[in-house]
């Protein structure tokens, strides 16, 4: 079952914002079924894809993420009935905004993954990881990450209370 891990010279950093009812459970199922997928994603567990604020994504990019995954329940399956419909609209707008800002929308993944779709989950993760790996580092933001690095002198250790 193991794919074995091949080290590449660039390994993308990917942040995930997922609904705990579907995708997060799907990921758990993938675990219980001992599936094997790319280890790059760090997921934040949220009650609903409707709780996913564009601010999260912006901040993730500002933190040096090379890609961001957003995922929720299939339309009609939302635990809160309509959260994912709002998420769908908001993210459509947000995507276009990011694109206009010059961020490659290939770095921004949105998918519906139900709690039963462990296989789809692993496929999406793998596919997206490769996609981002091919895109390479998020250069645009990488240069902005640490605005003051050049201003520092070498660190002087001193402990504080």
């Amino acid at each position, binding site marked *: 079952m193991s794919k074995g891990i091949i080290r590449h010279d660039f390994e993308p950093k990917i942040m995930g914002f997922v609904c705990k009812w579907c995708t997060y459970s799907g990921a758990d199922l993938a675990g219980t079924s001992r599936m094997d997928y790319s280890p790059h994603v760090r997921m934040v567990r949220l009650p609903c894809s409707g709780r996913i604020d564009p601010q999260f994504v912006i901040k993730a990019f500002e*933190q040096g993420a090379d890609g961001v995954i957003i995922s929720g329940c299939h339309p009609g399956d939302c635990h809160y009935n309509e959260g994912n419909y709002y998420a769908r609209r908001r993210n459509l707008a947000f995507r276009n905004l990011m694109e206009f800002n010059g961020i490659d929308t290939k770095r921004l993944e949105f998918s519906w993954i139900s709690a039963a779709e462990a296989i789809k989950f692993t496929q999406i993760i793998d596919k997206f990881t490769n996609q981002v790996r091919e895109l390479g580092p998020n250069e645009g933001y990488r240069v902005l990450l640490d*605005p*003051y690095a050049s*201003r*520092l*002198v*070498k*660190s*002087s*250790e*001193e*402990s*504080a209370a």
Partner: protein
Amino acid sequence: MRTATLQKSDLDRVIDLLSQADYRVIAPQNQPRLEGPDSIDVATFQEVQPGDSHNIGEGLSTTGIKPFLFPKDEPLFAYENRGKKVVLTEVSLDFPKTVILGVRPCDVASVSSLDAVFSDKNAGFNDELFTKRLEKTTFVSYSCTEPDVSCFCTSVGLAPDSDKGSDLHMTELPDGTLHVEVKTEAGEKIAAVIDSLLSGEGDAVARQQAGVVAAEKITRLRDSASLLPWLQDLNNFGDEMWQRLGEKCLGCGACTFECPTCHCFDIVDENSGNKGYRVKFWDSCQFDHFTLHASGHNTRNSQFERYRNRFNCKFKIYEDVFGEKGCVGCGRCIRGCPVNLDITEYMAEVAQKATTSAS
């Protein structure tokens, strides 16, 4: 000290020579702009390399030279939490040797206003981030020959050709040549570097004349003598004028951030996980949170009070504390204001009120 003549066409050579002499050269530069009616020309001071375009002597730059002495944002130190320990990393205070070319008289005069705040000569505390930069900086100023409709330097004791705070002063003469006056040691050094381009003694008379001609062109009021006493009379603090003129202010910081002498800043920790920077960045007395107390009380609760504060800061508080005006009459706050709030209208109003009360 020495005076001489410089061909305006040689300004590019000046940049070359100074760069060769390891100066970081700063000069006003037009910013690239999008096509279409909505964009306007913006000139800012930028680091220039030999061959780069510049617009020395063409109007007043949109923003001044403040960012090169007091940047819009800079780190105080970096920190990192490691277990029970906090590791601090200082920022470097060793700044490059810099010359700023083509500074307008108002901007170069503004340096002393900033210095009054940041150096220890009055405040008793020495902000090295400012003073160490200042030590390394030489100002080559350039008289105005075409002051625009918003200029009012003559109302604050300056003039289109004044050389207050300048190290080396240039004045453009009608014949297109530049009259160069060395003002300080630092100026001498610059003169030495560009010596090959300098000739003769220049033309002191023509320079004087050019100054007068330029001053003539300034349309906004000139007398501000009555300001201080009127402002110092606390009865006038509640004058209806403040509200009438100030109520249209929308409370953005454009005037303060474009102002060469405004110096207020805020400090926050920009945290990410276990580490971050303590950052100092421009703040504005026009923002409603500027005077908001933790209690929820706001000492300047409405916008006209905030602008009243700004006006008082320039013409009263500065005079009281530092014995000079906090305004250099560059007019940027007038050009930049979205609602055309005009500081000279305040001045005019005050002057008029002062005279009426006097008589």
